[in-house]
């Protein structure tokens, strides 16, 4: 992306040569796996000679060429001089274990939500998700947490449940299913 972000020196600790080769291997592995999977739908189609796998295989081959050309040009550019980059490398202060844990949780929290929602139902898991994310972003005071929860959850219920009848998951655990249904009844019927 052109909207570049600054990255620390840690991920770029590898030499550019190794990084370029690793990048190429990543693409080759991805394309290879993709190509191999096309064999599962390689049966002939009576009215189309190229079959369902023709187009995907064509793309895989062109992508393979693209990845290889990229490697060749990167190595060529490496021979010409140090790699030019719009990604700005800056020295960073050492990151504490707590900060690493926080960053990990910022990425992991949505997946915890995804795991819990089919069980608890969206009407129960959404407020938990909102509060959890606010805490991860460093919001600790009760007033802003309550305010954001009220506005976001309230508007969600009003717009998507009352007006547009978006059927969010209700959960498959008995008690939580009942709670979800009660929340929907409240949002739609006001009781």
């Amino acid at each position, binding site marked *: *992306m*052109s*909207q*570049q*972000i600054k990255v620390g020196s840690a991920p770029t600790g590898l030499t550019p040569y190794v990084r370029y080769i690793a*990048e190429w291997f990543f*693409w080759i592995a991805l394309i290879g796996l*993709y190509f191999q*999977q*096309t*064999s*599962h*739908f390689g049966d002939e*189609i009576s*009215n*189309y000679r*190229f*079959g*369902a*796998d023709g*187009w*995907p295989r064509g*793309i895989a081959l*062109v*992508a393979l060429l*693209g*990845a290889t*050309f*990229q490697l060749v*040009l990167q190595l060529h*550019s490496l021979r*010409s*001089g140090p790699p*030019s980059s719009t*990604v700005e490398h800056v020295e960073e202060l050492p990151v504490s274990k707590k*900060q690493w844990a*926080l*960053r990990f949780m*910022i*990425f992991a929290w*949505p997946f915890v939500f*995804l795991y819990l*929602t*089919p069980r608890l139902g969206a009407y129960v898991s*959404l407020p938990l998700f*909102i509060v959890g*994310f*606010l805490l991860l*972003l*460093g919001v600790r005071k009760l007033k802003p947490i309550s305010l*954001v929860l009220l*506005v*976001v959850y309230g508007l*969600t219920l009003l717009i*998507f449940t009352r007006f*547009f009848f*978006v*059927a*969010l*998951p209700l959960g498959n655990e008995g008690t939580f299913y009942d709670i979800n249904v009660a929340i929907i009844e409240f949002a739609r019927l006001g009781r």
Partner: protein
Amino acid sequence: MDLFIQGTMTLFGSGTSISIFFLGLLGGMLFGAIPGVNMLTLGAVLLPFTVTMSAENAVMLFSVIYCAGVFGGAITAILFNIPGAPENAPTCLDGYPMTQNGQAGKAIGAAVSCSALGGTVSAVVMMMATGVVATFAVRAFGPPEIFALIVFGLTVSASIGAKSLWKGWLSIFAGLMIATIGTDPIGGIPRFSNGSVFGFDYQSYYMSAGIHFIPMILGFFAVSEVMGQAIAISKGKRKRPKASIEFPALAEFIAMRWTIVRSVFIGLFAGVLPGIGATLAAFLGYSQARQWSKNKDKFGSGELEGVVAPETANNAATGAAMIPLLALGLPGGALTAMIMGIFQIHGMEPGPLIFITSGDLVWVTFAAMFWANILILFLGWFQTKTVVHILRVPFRWLAPGILVLAIIGSYALRNLFVDVWIMFLAGAVGYMMRSTGYSAAGVVLGLILGGIGESAFGKSMQLLDYQILDLFGRPITAILLILSVVMVVFSIVTEWRNGQGKKIQMD
């Protein structure tokens, strides 16, 4: 002109018509701006109610929603890096950096003005040349031409948002590969829905439905942005953008006149072709603006032309998309298909005879689209002065709301929870892509055009009896394909020379 005035009089002749017009305008803008809940959602909700409306009001309502919806998505693209619809994705590339640079008002102002301008010109062209343009476009553009146009579009847009040409290409290939998941468009064979990886068998009926581009867009743009900002907050590095309400100066628009004119033509051209529409118009508009700009190096870091070009092009495509619908009865997209449904509900069949059998209705549609675009300018100006103040709310407070909207937007699309998984996975991948120089916009473009491209290629091959070289026997196809090849070769040579130039400097 008399017919236009008559259409305008019908449009504003009764309180009911005026109310429906303004409700459509505000609803389109609002739904266009909410990620995931786009103008199609509004259209789908309102479609049953059109049975009880007069045919004029029903068609007018949907025409206005169409114009306003395409514009509305620019607001969230600029303020939060969340495109309201796929056609607003290229607007993020420079619109959002402008917000970060404290120029949100200028970006939104430019989007408003150029959307209105593009849409108005498009409406005028629609009034003047519906019959001629539609007949030419549909006769001249069969599946081979559409396939060639998509190849050309991908070629010229390859490096959008990427660090290098090859990273751009690989991003597009990734999008094309994702687009093949689901049912094959020619034979209806399910792909990637069952098989085995390293001895582990898998079977998923979800995959038969394919991966929809809306969760991918929300993931790549909205989720990855929220994650990026959250990490910046955890590092204590995030600065709140200044909420400026400065509108672009007239001189700035004059300086960008050729970009605007070029984007209008691109929008008209892409919009008139069934199935291509506003998304390719926006990407082509952006890539051509960068290609011809004196400040091409500044694209991606907050260049005003990078907002003006896609927003002009995508709105210019709206009026043009109505041309094949009205003149030939060919809807180019989902919303125009709904409009066709309204015609049929009211006992009319769009096509050449519509001008004779329901001329009044056609001119009400023309007038509605024209005035909707004019009013977008005024309402948009008001919106610029107000909506920018959202930036004063701390991002920590906004982030959960953005994510909840994205969650519901991706889920509500098909009522599949797997779409929410895909959105968050795309968010994580998008975050990594930003730091490695790959282009999220490229993946999205490949994903959107991949299905259309494959379908057009398949039909072309059946049409040409599988003789690929016969593609060059059709003039438009040949020109577009040769231009694509020239573009690729030129890009490779330029990149290679840049490497050589650097070597000489080092020596």
